[in-house]
């Protein structure tokens, strides 16, 4: 009775399982898993066993998947001689101390900046390089003072024009925003948002000469002559 009830059910289950295995192997036979022939063979042999079991009325154990065995047995801890440990630590300490000493020794010394130092050869030629002082006539001095005053005035006016212009522009913007608000509150809200893409604002020019159209910059060579300082 039991046999009649159970067996066809298990049979169907197992058949399905074999189909799944075969399908899986067929799908990724390139990468991993068994080649399809093996799967087929396996299915065949299992079916044979099943037939056998059918005849012998032996129950088949279900296929059980064990859990992954990723871990490996723990390694035995190595015992190191305490003397060696102490030596190692001392060596490290000495190394650090040496570095500190070296840093302290160089602390007062700054890296020289070649560009800021007058070459020695020039300092020696100082007396022949000095220009003869030409006395400035009173007329010229007066003219220069006048010009400096004019210049100050000119720059001040330029500044004032700039400031008033900026104020005017700001007033115009505020008026425009106010008009916009009267028409549409939503558009106004959009308009007063901060524009994150605006900054940083980069602009080039104006320059002394206009850029040459389609200019092909010649490749140059450069040598890095920067000295290295430790």
């Amino acid at each position, binding site marked *: 009775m039991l046999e009649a009830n159970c067996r066809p059910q298990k049979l169907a289950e197992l058949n399905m399982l074999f189909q799944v295995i075969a399908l899986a192997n067929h799908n990724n036979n390139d990468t991993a898993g068994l080649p399809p022939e093996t799967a087929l063979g396996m299915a065949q042999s299992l079916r044979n066993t099943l037939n056998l079991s059918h005849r012998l009325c032996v129950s088949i154990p279900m296929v059980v998947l064990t859990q992954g065995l990723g871990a490996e047995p723990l390694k035995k801890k190595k015992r190191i001689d305490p003397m060696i440990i102490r030596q190692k630590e001392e060596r490290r300490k000495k190394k650090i101390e040496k570095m500190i000493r070296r840093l302290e020794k160089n602390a007062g010394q700054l890296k020289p900046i070649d560009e800021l130092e007058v070459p020695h050869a020039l300092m020696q030629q100082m007396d022949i390089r000095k220009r003869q002082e030409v006395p400035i006539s009173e007329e010229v001095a007066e003219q220069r003072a006048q010009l400096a005053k004019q210049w100050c005035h000119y720059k001040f006016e330029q500044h004032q024009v700039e400031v008033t212009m900026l104020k005017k522009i700001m007033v115009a913007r505020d008026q425009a925003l106010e008009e916009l608000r009267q028409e549409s509150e939503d558009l106004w809200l959009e308009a007063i948002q901060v524009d994150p893409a605006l900054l940083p604002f980069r*602009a080039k020019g104006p320059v002394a000469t206009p850029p040459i159209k389609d200019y092909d910059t010649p490749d140059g060579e450069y040598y890095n002559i920067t000295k290295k300082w430790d």
Partner: protein
Amino acid sequence: MAFVLRGSARALQAAAHHITPRSMSSVAAGKWQIVGSACITRPPVVCPPMTPLEQQYSEMITAIEEENSLKSDHEIRAEQDRINLEIMKTGEADELDLEEASKQTAIEFEDSCLEELKSFKTTHLDKVNPEVKDVKSINRALERSLVLVVKQKLGTSEEWVFPHTPWQPGETLRQTCERLVQETCGNDLKVKFLGNAPCGFYKYKYPKTVRKEGFIGAKVFFYKCQVRNKDGPITPGTNIVDHQWLTQDELDTRFKQSYAKSISKFLVSDR
């Protein structure tokens, strides 16, 4: 002052976040039609020439600097040459190395430099270049800032204005202007918009016969943008009859008086 400004800006931002936007179209369909307009500027490329005062001052500074300077290698060499020449004249040339005498003197060096300078051709856009006079070219008047002015149909007549287009529901005014720049100039002209806020406005009434859809007139909001990159020729859109790149002095001759007045309020003068 800065603190107050920052505080108010934050308050505005907070307000912007909390107020849920109502449906755009219902709000904007007031009595005035909202129009976005782009003020496309090409900043000056080349420094303008110096004014007479600037010229004088720069000359003075150069003179003072030269008085205070030390002699250069070249000057010392010229002096040495002069001494050598005098020795040669007195007939004690045998004391000097003959090789030394055959070398190029400082004055000769100067002359050759001047000659080289004469033969050097500058690549300035000079007066011979047709682009200088062509008002349609973006490369004219390099030392001035230029604005793009187009001839657009306004009702029945055609008028010189900044490019403009009506605002469409669903976009912000800045987006309207970005779309406008693309429609007017194509994709080759890259511009940078200066902020989200309009820089100026101009409103005018429609003639009574044309007042459709309940609009009594248009409010034009201007947005400033700068030309960043021009890859190719500008291809004007279909709604544009003509276009010109003009300096600010030339604008008044093209525009209506009231339009020119509202424009002048926000333009950065380059004079």
